[in-house]
Protein backbone atom coordinates (compact mmCIF):
# COMPACT_ATOMS: atom_id res chain seq x y z
CA UNK A 1 0.00 0.00 0.00
CA UNK A 2 1.43 3.40 -0.92
CA UNK A 3 2.17 5.71 1.97
CA UNK A 4 0.79 8.75 0.22
CA UNK A 5 -1.75 8.82 -2.58
CA UNK A 6 -3.00 11.86 -4.40
CA UNK A 7 -6.12 11.07 -6.36
CA UNK A 8 -7.28 13.56 -8.94
CA UNK A 9 -6.18 16.55 -6.90
CA UNK A 10 -7.41 19.79 -8.43
CA UNK A 11 -7.09 23.35 -7.25
CA UNK A 12 -8.22 26.50 -9.00
CA UNK A 13 -7.61 30.15 -8.34
CA UNK A 14 -10.30 31.91 -10.29
CA UNK A 15 -9.71 30.99 -13.91
CA UNK A 16 -6.25 29.58 -13.29
CA UNK A 17 -6.11 25.84 -12.69
CA UNK A 18 -2.94 25.54 -10.65
CA UNK A 19 -3.17 21.80 -10.05
CA UNK A 20 -5.13 19.74 -12.54
CA UNK A 21 -6.33 16.25 -11.64
CA UNK A 22 -2.96 15.15 -10.29
CA UNK A 23 -2.46 11.48 -9.47
CA UNK A 24 0.68 10.63 -7.59
CA UNK A 25 1.91 7.98 -5.19
CA UNK A 26 4.74 7.73 -2.74
CA UNK A 27 5.71 4.26 -1.54
CA UNK A 28 7.13 3.61 1.91
CA UNK A 29 10.88 4.21 1.85
CA UNK A 30 10.77 5.94 -1.53
CA UNK A 31 12.41 9.23 -2.39
CA UNK A 32 10.30 10.96 -5.00
CA UNK A 33 11.07 14.29 -6.60
CA UNK A 34 8.47 16.61 -8.09
CA UNK A 35 9.90 18.80 -10.80
CA UNK A 36 8.60 21.15 -13.44
CA UNK A 37 9.09 24.63 -14.82
CA UNK A 38 8.13 27.66 -12.77
CA UNK A 39 4.43 27.91 -12.19
CA UNK A 40 3.90 24.21 -12.78
CA UNK A 41 1.99 23.91 -9.54
CA UNK A 42 4.57 22.17 -7.36
CA UNK A 43 4.21 24.30 -4.26
CA UNK A 44 0.43 24.35 -4.66
CA UNK A 45 0.53 20.56 -4.71
CA UNK A 46 2.51 20.58 -1.49
CA UNK A 47 0.02 22.95 0.08
CA UNK A 48 -2.83 20.67 -0.96
CA UNK A 49 -1.20 17.61 0.56
CA UNK A 50 -0.49 19.37 3.85
CA UNK A 51 -3.97 20.94 3.86
CA UNK A 52 -2.73 24.54 3.82
CA UNK A 53 -5.00 24.79 0.79
CA UNK A 54 -8.20 22.83 0.34
CA UNK A 55 -8.62 21.11 -3.04
CA UNK A 56 -11.55 21.87 -5.33
CA UNK A 57 -11.63 18.20 -6.21
CA UNK A 58 -9.73 15.02 -5.45
CA UNK A 59 -8.42 13.29 -2.36
CA UNK A 60 -5.30 12.94 -0.31
CA UNK A 61 -4.90 9.52 1.27
CA UNK A 62 -2.14 8.95 3.79
CA UNK A 63 -1.42 5.47 5.15
CA UNK A 64 -4.83 4.37 4.00
CA UNK A 65 -6.63 7.26 5.65
CA UNK A 66 -8.40 10.02 3.76
CA UNK A 67 -6.87 13.17 5.17
CA UNK A 68 -8.32 15.60 2.65
CA UNK A 69 -9.37 18.82 4.30
CA UNK A 70 -7.99 17.91 7.72
CA UNK A 71 -6.82 20.88 9.80
CA UNK A 72 -3.16 21.57 9.09
CA UNK A 73 -2.01 20.58 12.55
CA UNK A 74 -3.70 17.20 12.30
CA UNK A 75 -1.95 16.43 9.05
CA UNK A 76 1.33 17.03 10.84
CA UNK A 77 0.22 14.83 13.73
CA UNK A 78 -0.51 12.02 11.28
CA UNK A 79 3.18 11.93 10.40
CA UNK A 80 3.84 14.41 7.62
CA UNK A 81 6.55 17.00 8.13
CA UNK A 82 7.47 19.68 5.65
CA UNK A 83 9.84 22.50 4.99
CA UNK A 84 8.79 25.65 3.20
CA UNK A 85 10.02 27.37 0.11
CA UNK A 86 10.61 30.58 2.01
CA UNK A 87 12.29 28.89 4.99
CA UNK A 88 10.08 29.15 8.04
CA UNK A 89 11.86 29.01 11.36
CA UNK A 90 11.56 30.82 14.67
CA UNK A 91 14.08 33.63 14.28
CA UNK A 92 14.33 34.83 17.85
CA UNK A 93 14.68 31.36 19.37
CA UNK A 94 17.93 29.44 19.51
CA UNK A 95 18.61 26.65 17.06
CA UNK A 96 18.08 24.05 19.74
CA UNK A 97 14.82 25.67 20.88
CA UNK A 98 13.63 25.63 17.28
CA UNK A 99 14.24 21.92 16.91
CA UNK A 100 13.04 21.12 20.41
CA UNK A 101 9.65 22.65 19.69
CA UNK A 102 9.37 20.46 16.63
CA UNK A 103 10.35 17.36 18.61
CA UNK A 104 8.02 18.23 21.48
CA UNK A 105 5.01 17.89 19.24
CA UNK A 106 5.72 14.19 18.83
CA UNK A 107 7.47 13.25 22.03
CA UNK A 108 7.36 15.80 24.82
CA UNK A 109 9.38 13.72 27.26
CA UNK A 110 12.38 13.10 25.05
CA UNK A 111 12.14 16.37 23.14
CA UNK A 112 15.54 17.65 24.25
CA UNK A 113 17.35 14.45 23.33
CA UNK A 114 15.62 14.17 19.96
CA UNK A 115 16.48 17.79 19.23
CA UNK A 116 20.16 17.24 19.97
CA UNK A 117 20.16 14.14 17.75
CA UNK A 118 18.59 16.02 14.87
CA UNK A 119 21.09 18.86 15.21
CA UNK A 120 23.86 16.23 15.08
CA UNK A 121 22.51 14.68 11.90
CA UNK A 122 22.44 18.04 10.18
CA UNK A 123 25.86 18.98 11.60
CA UNK A 124 24.42 22.04 13.31
CA UNK A 125 25.38 21.17 16.88
CA UNK A 126 27.85 24.02 17.12
CA UNK A 127 24.98 26.48 16.53
CA UNK A 128 22.72 24.97 19.15
CA UNK A 129 22.64 28.00 21.44
CA UNK A 130 22.81 30.59 18.73
CA UNK A 131 19.77 32.63 17.82
CA UNK A 132 18.33 31.22 14.61
CA UNK A 133 18.27 34.50 12.77
CA UNK A 134 22.04 34.70 13.14
CA UNK A 135 22.60 31.58 11.06
CA UNK A 136 23.55 31.79 7.41
CA UNK A 137 20.79 31.18 4.91
CA UNK A 138 22.12 27.74 4.13
CA UNK A 139 22.28 26.74 7.77
CA UNK A 140 18.78 28.06 8.33
CA UNK A 141 17.53 25.76 5.61
CA UNK A 142 19.30 22.85 7.23
CA UNK A 143 17.82 23.91 10.56
CA UNK A 144 14.39 23.69 9.00
CA UNK A 145 15.19 20.18 7.83
CA UNK A 146 16.41 19.31 11.32
CA UNK A 147 13.06 20.49 12.66
CA UNK A 148 11.26 18.37 10.14
CA UNK A 149 13.10 15.19 11.04
CA UNK A 150 12.75 15.91 14.75
CA UNK A 151 9.03 15.49 14.19
CA UNK A 152 9.82 11.81 13.46
CA UNK A 153 7.65 11.86 10.36
CA UNK A 154 6.79 8.99 8.09
CA UNK A 155 6.73 11.33 5.13
CA UNK A 156 9.18 14.17 4.83
CA UNK A 157 8.23 16.88 2.36
CA UNK A 158 11.04 19.21 1.33
CA UNK A 159 10.08 22.29 -0.67
CA UNK A 160 13.14 23.44 -2.61
CA UNK A 161 15.63 22.65 0.15
CA UNK A 162 18.63 23.89 -1.81
CA UNK A 163 17.16 27.15 -3.03
CA UNK A 164 19.46 30.08 -2.44
CA UNK A 165 22.35 27.87 -1.41
CA UNK A 166 25.82 28.23 -2.83
CA UNK A 167 27.37 25.37 -4.76
CA UNK A 168 29.34 24.30 -1.75
CA UNK A 169 26.36 24.52 0.59
CA UNK A 170 24.25 22.54 -1.87
CA UNK A 171 26.84 19.80 -2.00
CA UNK A 172 26.98 19.65 1.75
CA UNK A 173 23.19 19.57 2.02
CA UNK A 174 22.94 16.73 -0.48
CA UNK A 175 25.56 14.69 1.34
CA UNK A 176 23.80 15.16 4.64
CA UNK A 177 20.40 14.40 3.20
CA UNK A 178 21.66 11.30 1.44
CA UNK A 179 23.25 9.90 4.57
CA UNK A 180 20.17 10.67 6.63
CA UNK A 181 17.66 9.30 4.17
CA UNK A 182 19.42 6.01 3.57
CA UNK A 183 19.83 5.46 7.29
CA UNK A 184 16.31 6.33 8.33
CA UNK A 185 13.05 4.64 7.56
CA UNK A 186 11.64 7.61 5.81
CA UNK A 187 9.73 8.44 2.66
CA UNK A 188 10.56 11.71 1.02
CA UNK A 189 8.69 13.97 -1.36
CA UNK A 190 10.96 16.63 -2.72
CA UNK A 191 10.36 19.69 -4.86
CA UNK A 192 13.54 20.75 -6.53
CA UNK A 193 14.72 22.95 -9.34
CA UNK A 194 18.32 21.83 -9.22
CA UNK A 195 18.43 18.81 -11.56
CA UNK A 196 21.75 17.55 -10.26
CA UNK A 197 20.34 17.34 -6.76
CA UNK A 198 17.29 15.55 -8.11
CA UNK A 199 19.28 12.94 -9.96
CA UNK A 200 21.56 12.35 -6.98
CA UNK A 201 18.75 11.77 -4.53
CA UNK A 202 15.53 10.66 -6.20
CA UNK A 203 14.34 7.11 -6.78
CA UNK A 204 11.45 8.35 -8.88
CA UNK A 205 10.39 11.61 -10.43
CA UNK A 206 6.99 13.16 -11.11
CA UNK A 207 7.03 15.95 -13.68
CA UNK A 208 4.40 18.67 -13.51
CA UNK A 209 3.65 21.12 -16.28
CA UNK A 210 0.83 23.65 -16.05
CA UNK A 211 -0.70 21.73 -13.18
CA UNK A 212 -0.72 18.37 -14.92
CA UNK A 213 1.45 15.30 -14.52
CA UNK A 214 3.26 14.84 -17.82
CA UNK A 215 5.72 12.16 -16.76
CA UNK A 216 6.27 9.79 -13.91
CA UNK A 217 9.05 7.27 -13.46
CA UNK A 218 12.73 6.56 -12.89
CA UNK A 219 15.19 9.41 -13.49
CA UNK A 220 16.65 7.98 -16.64
CA UNK A 221 13.27 7.55 -18.29
CA UNK A 222 12.15 11.02 -17.31
CA UNK A 223 15.36 12.51 -18.65
CA UNK A 224 14.73 10.92 -21.99
CA UNK A 225 11.06 11.88 -22.18
CA UNK A 226 10.38 14.15 -25.15
CA UNK A 227 7.45 15.98 -23.62
CA UNK A 228 9.51 16.78 -20.56
CA UNK A 229 12.22 18.28 -22.71
CA UNK A 230 9.68 20.39 -24.53
CA UNK A 231 8.16 21.65 -21.31
CA UNK A 232 11.52 22.86 -20.12
CA UNK A 233 12.68 24.27 -23.40
CA UNK A 234 10.62 27.44 -23.29
CA UNK A 235 11.34 28.04 -19.68
CA UNK A 236 13.65 28.60 -16.81
CA UNK A 237 15.82 25.51 -16.48
Amino acid at each position, binding site marked *: MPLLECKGLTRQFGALVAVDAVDMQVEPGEIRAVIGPNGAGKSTLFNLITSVLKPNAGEVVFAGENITGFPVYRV*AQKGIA*RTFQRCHIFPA*LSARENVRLAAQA*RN*ARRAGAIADEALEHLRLTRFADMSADMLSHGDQRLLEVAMAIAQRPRLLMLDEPTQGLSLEETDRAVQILKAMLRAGNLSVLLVEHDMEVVFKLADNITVLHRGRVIADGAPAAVKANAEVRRAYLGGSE
Partner: protein
Amino acid sequence: MSWRLRFALVAGVSLLVPFAVPQYSLTVIVAALIFSLFAMSLDLIVGYCRLYSFGHAAAYGLGAYCAALILTHLQLPLPIGIALAVLVTVAIAIPIAWVCTRSTGVSFAMLTLAFAQLGYAMLFRFRDITGGSDGVVGIPRPPGPFGIDWFQGRIGYYYLVLACLLGSYLVCRAIVRSNFGAVLAGIRENEAKTVSLGYNTRAYKITTVVLSYGFGGLAGALYAGFAGYASPELFFWLTSGHVLIMVVVGGAGTLIGPMLGALFFVFLEHQLSQVTDLWPLIFGSIFIAFVMFFPQGILGLLRRRHAAA
Protein backbone atom coordinates in the same frame (compact mmCIF):
# COMPACT_ATOMS: atom_id res chain seq x y z
CA MET B 1 22.40 35.24 42.04
CA SER B 2 20.04 32.37 41.31
CA TRP B 3 16.42 33.02 40.62
CA ARG B 4 15.27 31.18 43.69
CA LEU B 5 17.45 33.34 45.88
CA ARG B 6 16.22 36.51 44.25
CA PHE B 7 12.62 35.46 44.67
CA ALA B 8 13.15 34.52 48.31
CA LEU B 9 14.76 37.90 48.90
CA VAL B 10 11.90 39.82 47.32
CA ALA B 11 9.33 37.72 49.16
CA GLY B 12 11.18 38.16 52.41
CA VAL B 13 11.44 41.91 52.05
CA SER B 14 7.81 42.25 51.11
CA LEU B 15 6.80 40.32 54.22
CA LEU B 16 8.41 43.00 56.30
CA VAL B 17 6.98 45.97 54.43
CA PRO B 18 3.91 46.55 56.65
CA PHE B 19 6.18 47.15 59.60
CA ALA B 20 8.46 49.51 57.78
CA VAL B 21 6.02 51.93 56.19
CA PRO B 22 3.29 54.23 57.51
CA GLN B 23 -0.28 52.96 57.38
CA TYR B 24 -1.31 55.28 54.59
CA SER B 25 1.48 54.14 52.33
CA LEU B 26 0.35 50.58 52.80
CA THR B 27 -2.92 51.41 51.07
CA VAL B 28 -1.11 52.71 48.04
CA ILE B 29 1.17 49.68 48.05
CA VAL B 30 -1.75 47.27 48.12
CA ALA B 31 -3.30 49.09 45.17
CA ALA B 32 0.03 48.82 43.37
CA LEU B 33 0.24 45.08 44.05
CA ILE B 34 -3.30 44.53 42.77
CA PHE B 35 -2.45 46.39 39.57
CA SER B 36 0.74 44.36 39.28
CA LEU B 37 -1.30 41.21 39.26
CA PHE B 38 -3.68 42.73 36.72
CA ALA B 39 -0.81 43.77 34.47
CA MET B 40 0.95 40.42 34.74
CA SER B 41 -2.25 38.67 33.74
CA LEU B 42 -2.41 40.72 30.55
CA ASP B 43 1.21 39.94 29.79
CA LEU B 44 0.26 36.33 29.17
CA ILE B 45 -1.70 37.43 26.12
CA VAL B 46 0.25 40.47 25.01
CA GLY B 47 3.78 39.45 25.84
CA TYR B 48 3.63 35.72 25.30
CA CYS B 49 1.20 35.44 22.41
CA ARG B 50 1.68 38.88 20.91
CA LEU B 51 -2.08 39.41 20.85
CA TYR B 52 -3.01 42.92 21.84
CA SER B 53 -6.09 43.03 24.00
CA PHE B 54 -7.88 46.35 24.37
CA GLY B 55 -10.55 44.89 26.58
CA HIS B 56 -8.78 43.35 29.54
CA ALA B 57 -10.87 45.54 31.81
CA ALA B 58 -13.53 42.92 31.23
CA ALA B 59 -11.55 40.42 33.29
CA TYR B 60 -10.95 42.94 36.03
CA GLY B 61 -14.53 44.17 36.08
CA LEU B 62 -15.94 40.65 36.01
CA GLY B 63 -13.80 39.59 38.95
CA ALA B 64 -14.64 42.72 40.90
CA TYR B 65 -18.38 42.65 40.35
CA CYS B 66 -18.63 38.90 40.93
CA ALA B 67 -16.75 39.26 44.18
CA ALA B 68 -18.81 42.30 45.11
CA LEU B 69 -22.10 40.52 44.62
CA ILE B 70 -20.96 37.24 46.17
CA LEU B 71 -19.53 38.87 49.27
CA THR B 72 -22.43 41.26 49.69
CA HIS B 73 -25.30 38.88 49.09
CA LEU B 74 -23.95 35.47 50.03
CA GLN B 75 -21.76 36.55 52.92
CA LEU B 76 -19.26 33.80 52.16
CA PRO B 77 -15.87 34.00 53.83
CA LEU B 78 -13.65 36.46 51.98
CA PRO B 79 -11.11 34.02 50.49
CA ILE B 80 -13.87 31.69 49.35
CA GLY B 81 -15.86 34.56 47.88
CA ILE B 82 -12.83 35.68 45.95
CA ALA B 83 -12.08 32.18 44.72
CA LEU B 84 -15.67 31.77 43.58
CA ALA B 85 -15.53 35.09 41.75
CA VAL B 86 -12.43 33.88 39.91
CA LEU B 87 -14.19 30.66 38.90
CA VAL B 88 -17.17 32.57 37.52
CA THR B 89 -14.83 34.90 35.63
CA VAL B 90 -13.00 31.94 34.13
CA ALA B 91 -16.29 30.34 33.09
CA ILE B 92 -17.43 33.51 31.32
CA ALA B 93 -13.99 33.93 29.79
CA ILE B 94 -14.20 30.64 27.91
CA PRO B 95 -16.76 31.69 25.28
CA ILE B 96 -15.15 35.13 25.08
CA ALA B 97 -11.76 33.53 24.42
CA TRP B 98 -13.25 31.17 21.89
CA VAL B 99 -14.72 34.04 19.88
CA CYS B 100 -11.82 36.45 20.14
CA THR B 101 -9.14 33.96 19.14
CA ARG B 102 -10.91 33.43 15.86
CA SER B 103 -9.01 36.50 14.70
CA THR B 104 -5.66 38.09 15.27
CA GLY B 105 -4.24 41.57 15.13
CA VAL B 106 -6.68 44.45 14.97
CA SER B 107 -9.73 42.21 14.79
CA PHE B 108 -8.71 40.47 18.00
CA ALA B 109 -8.19 43.84 19.64
CA MET B 110 -11.59 45.07 18.50
CA LEU B 111 -13.34 41.91 19.65
CA THR B 112 -11.84 42.14 23.12
CA LEU B 113 -12.85 45.80 23.26
CA ALA B 114 -16.34 44.91 22.13
CA PHE B 115 -16.76 42.41 24.96
CA ALA B 116 -15.57 44.93 27.50
CA GLN B 117 -17.98 47.52 26.11
CA LEU B 118 -20.73 44.94 26.22
CA GLY B 119 -19.94 44.31 29.86
CA TYR B 120 -19.99 48.03 30.53
CA ALA B 121 -23.38 48.37 28.86
CA MET B 122 -24.74 45.36 30.75
CA LEU B 123 -23.88 47.06 34.03
CA PHE B 124 -26.30 49.84 33.20
CA ARG B 125 -28.89 47.51 31.72
CA PHE B 126 -29.14 45.43 34.87
CA ARG B 127 -28.82 48.30 37.30
CA ASP B 128 -31.02 46.54 39.86
CA ILE B 129 -28.30 44.03 40.43
CA THR B 130 -25.22 46.06 39.67
CA GLY B 131 -26.27 49.42 41.02
CA GLY B 132 -25.83 51.08 37.65
CA SER B 133 -23.55 54.11 37.74
CA ASP B 134 -23.39 53.97 41.54
CA GLY B 135 -21.94 50.50 41.48
CA VAL B 136 -21.89 48.15 44.43
CA VAL B 137 -20.90 49.83 47.66
CA GLY B 138 -20.15 48.66 51.13
CA ILE B 139 -18.57 45.36 50.14
CA PRO B 140 -17.84 43.47 53.34
CA ARG B 141 -14.90 41.27 54.19
CA PRO B 142 -16.74 38.44 55.88
CA PRO B 143 -14.66 36.40 58.33
CA GLY B 144 -13.82 32.76 57.85
CA PRO B 145 -13.27 30.02 57.10
CA PHE B 146 -12.92 28.64 60.56
CA GLY B 147 -13.50 32.09 62.04
CA ILE B 148 -10.28 33.61 60.72
CA ASP B 149 -10.52 37.36 60.50
CA TRP B 150 -6.97 38.13 59.45
CA PHE B 151 -8.02 39.87 56.27
CA GLN B 152 -10.32 42.40 57.77
CA GLY B 153 -7.49 44.68 58.74
CA ARG B 154 -5.19 46.61 56.49
CA ILE B 155 -2.12 44.54 57.22
CA GLY B 156 -3.98 41.28 56.88
CA TYR B 157 -5.33 42.28 53.51
CA TYR B 158 -1.86 43.27 52.40
CA TYR B 159 -0.65 39.74 53.11
CA LEU B 160 -3.61 38.28 51.24
CA VAL B 161 -2.85 40.35 48.16
CA LEU B 162 0.85 39.61 48.45
CA ALA B 163 0.21 35.90 48.70
CA CYS B 164 -2.05 36.00 45.63
CA LEU B 165 0.50 38.00 43.67
CA LEU B 166 3.49 35.85 44.55
CA GLY B 167 1.50 32.67 44.06
CA SER B 168 0.17 33.81 40.71
CA TYR B 169 3.64 34.81 39.62
CA LEU B 170 5.01 31.38 40.48
CA VAL B 171 2.21 29.70 38.55
CA CYS B 172 2.60 31.95 35.52
CA ARG B 173 6.34 31.53 35.54
CA ALA B 174 5.99 27.76 35.64
CA ILE B 175 3.55 27.92 32.75
CA VAL B 176 5.68 30.05 30.48
CA ARG B 177 8.78 27.97 31.13
CA SER B 178 7.01 24.71 30.49
CA ASN B 179 6.36 22.90 27.23
CA PHE B 180 3.13 24.88 27.03
CA GLY B 181 5.11 28.10 27.17
CA ALA B 182 7.46 26.84 24.47
CA VAL B 183 4.48 26.46 22.16
CA LEU B 184 3.38 30.00 22.99
CA ALA B 185 6.85 31.17 21.97
CA GLY B 186 6.37 29.38 18.68
CA ILE B 187 2.97 31.00 18.18
CA ARG B 188 4.50 34.36 18.91
CA GLU B 189 7.41 33.93 16.53
CA ASN B 190 5.73 32.16 13.64
CA GLU B 191 2.24 30.82 14.13
CA ALA B 192 1.96 29.20 10.71
CA LYS B 193 5.09 27.18 11.36
CA THR B 194 3.85 26.16 14.79
CA VAL B 195 0.66 24.85 13.23
CA SER B 196 2.61 22.92 10.63
CA LEU B 197 4.55 21.24 13.43
CA GLY B 198 1.33 19.72 14.63
CA TYR B 199 0.09 22.08 17.33
CA ASN B 200 -3.52 23.17 17.59
CA THR B 201 -2.55 26.78 18.15
CA ARG B 202 -6.13 27.95 18.56
CA ALA B 203 -6.54 25.73 21.61
CA TYR B 204 -3.34 27.13 23.09
CA LYS B 205 -4.49 30.68 22.54
CA ILE B 206 -7.90 30.03 24.05
CA THR B 207 -6.28 28.45 27.09
CA THR B 208 -3.92 31.37 27.52
CA VAL B 209 -6.70 33.95 27.22
CA VAL B 210 -8.80 32.09 29.77
CA LEU B 211 -5.84 31.89 32.17
CA SER B 212 -5.22 35.56 31.62
CA TYR B 213 -8.83 36.38 32.47
CA GLY B 214 -8.56 34.17 35.53
CA PHE B 215 -5.62 36.06 36.97
CA GLY B 216 -7.13 39.38 35.89
CA GLY B 217 -10.34 38.37 37.59
CA LEU B 218 -8.41 37.54 40.74
CA ALA B 219 -6.97 41.05 40.66
CA GLY B 220 -10.45 42.50 40.24
CA ALA B 221 -11.87 40.41 43.06
CA LEU B 222 -9.06 41.47 45.37
CA TYR B 223 -9.75 45.06 44.39
CA ALA B 224 -13.41 44.75 45.30
CA GLY B 225 -12.50 43.55 48.76
CA PHE B 226 -9.79 46.15 49.08
CA ALA B 227 -11.74 49.22 48.01
CA GLY B 228 -15.07 48.07 49.37
CA TYR B 229 -16.88 49.08 46.19
CA ALA B 230 -17.10 48.21 42.52
CA SER B 231 -18.03 50.81 39.93
CA PRO B 232 -18.59 50.76 36.15
CA GLU B 233 -15.28 52.54 35.68
CA LEU B 234 -13.66 49.12 36.14
CA PHE B 235 -15.07 48.08 32.75
CA PHE B 236 -14.28 51.35 31.00
CA TRP B 237 -11.98 51.21 28.02
CA LEU B 238 -9.46 53.49 29.67
CA THR B 239 -8.95 50.88 32.36
CA SER B 240 -8.03 48.44 29.61
CA GLY B 241 -5.84 51.18 28.22
CA HIS B 242 -3.99 51.82 31.44
CA VAL B 243 -3.18 48.18 32.06
CA LEU B 244 -1.98 47.77 28.47
CA ILE B 245 0.23 50.81 28.99
CA MET B 246 1.65 49.24 32.14
CA VAL B 247 2.51 46.06 30.26
CA VAL B 248 4.16 47.77 27.32
CA VAL B 249 6.06 50.36 29.32
CA GLY B 250 7.15 47.80 31.88
CA GLY B 251 8.33 45.33 29.31
CA ALA B 252 6.03 42.81 27.70
CA GLY B 253 6.81 39.13 27.71
CA THR B 254 8.69 39.06 30.98
CA LEU B 255 5.98 38.79 33.67
CA ILE B 256 8.13 40.98 35.89
CA GLY B 257 8.22 43.89 33.45
CA PRO B 258 4.48 44.53 33.61
CA MET B 259 4.63 44.37 37.39
CA LEU B 260 7.31 47.03 37.30
CA GLY B 261 5.15 49.00 34.91
CA ALA B 262 2.25 48.81 37.32
CA LEU B 263 4.36 49.87 40.28
CA PHE B 264 5.84 52.67 38.21
CA PHE B 265 2.43 54.00 37.25
CA VAL B 266 0.73 53.69 40.60
CA PHE B 267 3.54 55.55 42.30
CA LEU B 268 3.81 58.08 39.50
CA GLU B 269 0.09 58.70 39.71
CA HIS B 270 0.28 59.02 43.42
CA GLN B 271 3.08 61.56 43.29
CA LEU B 272 1.82 63.47 40.28
CA SER B 273 -1.84 63.66 41.21
CA GLN B 274 -0.89 65.71 44.21
CA VAL B 275 0.82 68.21 41.98
CA THR B 276 -1.15 68.31 38.77
CA ASP B 277 -4.31 67.16 37.07
CA LEU B 278 -2.44 66.32 33.92
CA TRP B 279 -0.99 63.00 35.02
CA PRO B 280 -3.13 60.77 32.75
CA LEU B 281 -1.85 62.81 29.85
CA ILE B 282 1.69 62.14 31.00
CA PHE B 283 0.98 58.41 31.10
CA GLY B 284 -0.24 58.43 27.54
CA SER B 285 2.77 60.41 26.38
CA ILE B 286 5.22 58.13 28.17
CA PHE B 287 3.46 55.21 26.55
CA ILE B 288 3.85 56.64 23.06
CA ALA B 289 7.50 57.40 23.72
CA PHE B 290 8.15 53.85 24.84
CA VAL B 291 6.35 52.31 21.85
CA MET B 292 8.48 54.38 19.53
CA PHE B 293 11.86 54.26 21.21
CA PHE B 294 11.95 51.61 23.89
CA PRO B 295 9.79 48.72 22.76
CA GLN B 296 11.53 46.45 25.25
CA GLY B 297 10.17 48.52 28.09
CA ILE B 298 11.68 49.47 31.40
CA LEU B 299 12.83 45.94 32.10
CA GLY B 300 14.51 45.80 28.73
CA LEU B 301 16.37 49.01 29.48
CA LEU B 302 17.45 47.77 32.88
CA ARG B 303 18.68 44.49 31.47
CA ARG B 304 20.62 46.18 28.71
CA ARG B 305 22.31 48.46 31.16
CA HIS B 306 23.07 45.48 33.35
CA ALA B 307 24.53 43.55 30.45
CA ALA B 308 26.64 46.45 29.27
CA ALA B 309 28.02 47.19 32.71
